[in-house]
């Protein structure tokens, strides 16, 4: 495929693509892979895989507790990953970085440990991923606190018109996504954090879709907590990150009980370590941290600003291309500069499953369904949608392939 000269594309895109072994895959019938499901999970560059293999083949040992050379090497590799993530987020201190299983666990950790009671309220939004909805629903059920949410405008933005009423003096938590995984909307993070702060509430930012494609600077946006997930930033599954202001983390009670999170244990009672160890009970995802460290370093070398520019260029190109398909409606903002790289759409007369199926027969991998955002779909009166999501390795040619495959879908289902 020849790459049209699109301003903003990653320099040396074809070289960068070579970093990702899976992009060479062919699918059934010898069709090349066109992977447009990166908001679901990103592909992994060779450096990440190699870092994990090297760890498993040469340095594997349990951490902290092991005093021998392998133990020291493994511990150093794990803790270096923490440093890399701290740098990635511009955290004040490495102690602010807690490794979790995924973003979902990080959100549930907060929903389980932030104290709530009757009379308190938690404010979320209608565009959240289920992880940032159900975790707080359960917390409110347990505690008797009230769950509130920002609605959405017709063009897929947060409706802030009643913000002063929603976030009030009884608000304890304002939890919201930085970038919507369904609508692509980029929310005004710093403003929302300031609003939470003014009300005396803590802000919880779900950066699962932001971390892959934007510069995430926790000091610049002045949030209290922020989470993201490893597998969407070129890292492996099995690891996520909870970042929190050190003084806040140290005030939270423990989450899980077990090894590494303790100070001392007797049968009758125990005392607990400080953050981050307080929240890392048991053997942590060691090789996964090594992989994640390599991943954020890889993104750092490319430059998150460059990755972001690429995403914007591809997104603009995709929005343009999609709108040439008859009967296709994009959900969410239509201006590429205001959104992330996930684009959900409807195609009149064909169900998303069927679209995804036909696309798949041409090698084009997209997601169909509710993308773990049922309420946002309900808001727009749809039950499911088709979503394409690009990433740093996506070429304009792949967008062309998507558009062609959508045309083919229309003809396959005999739509005028």
């Amino acid at each position, binding site marked *: 495929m020849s790459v049209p000269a699109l301003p903003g594309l990653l320099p040396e895109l074809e070289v960068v693509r070579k970093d990702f072994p899976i992009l060479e895959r062919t699918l*059934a*019938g010898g*069709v090349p892979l066109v992977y447009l499901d990166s908001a679901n999970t990103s592909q992994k560059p060779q450096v990440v895989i190699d870092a994990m293999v090297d760890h498993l083949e040469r340095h594997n040992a349990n951490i902290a507790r092991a005093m021998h050379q392998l133990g020291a090497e493994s511990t150093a590799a794990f803790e270096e990953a923490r440093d890399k993530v701290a740098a990635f987020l511009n955290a004040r201190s490495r102690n602010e970085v807690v490794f979790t299983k995924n973003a979902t666990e990080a959100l549930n950790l907060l929903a389980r440990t932030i104290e709530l009671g009757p009379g308190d309220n938690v404010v979320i939004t209608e565009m959240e991923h289920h992880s940032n909805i159900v975790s707080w629903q359960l917390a409110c059920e347990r505690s008797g606190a009230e769950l509130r949410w920002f609605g959405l405008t017709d063009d897929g933005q947060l409706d802030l018109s009643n913000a002063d009423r929603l976030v009030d003096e009884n608000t304890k938590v304002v939890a919201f996504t930085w970038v919507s995984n369904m609508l692509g909307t980029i929310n005004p993070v710093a403003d929302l954090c300031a609003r939470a702060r003014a009300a005396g509430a803590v802000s919880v930012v779900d950066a699962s879709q932001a971390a892959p494609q934007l510069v995430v600077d926790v000091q610049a946006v002045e949030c209290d907590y922020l989470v993201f997930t490893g597998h969407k930033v070129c890292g492996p599954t099995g690891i996520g990150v909870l970042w929190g202001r050190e003084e806040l983390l140290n005030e939270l009670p423990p989450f899980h009980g077990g090894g590494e999170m303790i100070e001392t244990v007797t049968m009758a009672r125990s005392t607990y370590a400080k953050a981050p160890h307080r929240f890392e009970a048991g053997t942590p995802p060691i090789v996964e941290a090594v992989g994640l460290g390599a991943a954020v370093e890889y993104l750092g070398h490319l430059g998150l600003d460059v990755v972001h520019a690429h995403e914007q260029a591809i997104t603009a190109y995709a929005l343009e291309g999609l709108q040439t398909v008859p009967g296709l409606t994009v959900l969410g903002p239509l201006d590429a500069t205001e959104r992330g790289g996930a684009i959900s759409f409807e195609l009149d007369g064909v*169900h*998303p*499953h*069927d679209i995804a*199926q*036909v696309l798949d*027969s*041409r090698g084009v991998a997209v997601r*169909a*369904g*509710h993308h773990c955002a*049922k309420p946002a*779909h309900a808001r727009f009166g749809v*039950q*499911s949608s088709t979503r394409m999501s690009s990433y740093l390795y996506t070429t304009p040619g792949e967008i062309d392939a998507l558009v062609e495959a959508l045309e083919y879908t229309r003809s*396959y*289902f005999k739509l005028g």
Partner: protein
Amino acid sequence: MSQDLDALYQEIILDHYKNPHGKGLREEFEAEVHHVNPTCGDEVTLRVHLSDGVVDDVSYDALGCSISQASASVLYDLVVGKNVDEAMAIHEEFLTLMQGKGSVEPDEETLEDAIAFAGVAKFPARVKCALLSWMAWKDATVQAGGDR
């Protein structure tokens, strides 16, 4: 790859999808269930009306893809008018077909139009679509006391 696609989207399936049989919720029923496919959000509300051990009616309202819609339509054709035992046997046979990963040879005698779903069994992600209304029907029939 459109051979494979054609194996999935047999004409019969597309016909049922475009013109579903028995669609709509009707008033006479002993049990109503609501099933969802949690993965994709496809939904079906389904009612069964039994009398004297016979499936008198299956009425439904379904939101979903061609496969899930067509399979509800085929279900309607296959079970309405049969006695419950027979209908359960057809259910069992359809289940076996769908879970066979493409290795089960369907019997046109019993399964009629449902044999068109043989191709679906090769697409693991779509098996759930095909089974949505069938699972709902079994659930509703049991609730209506039809399994005794």
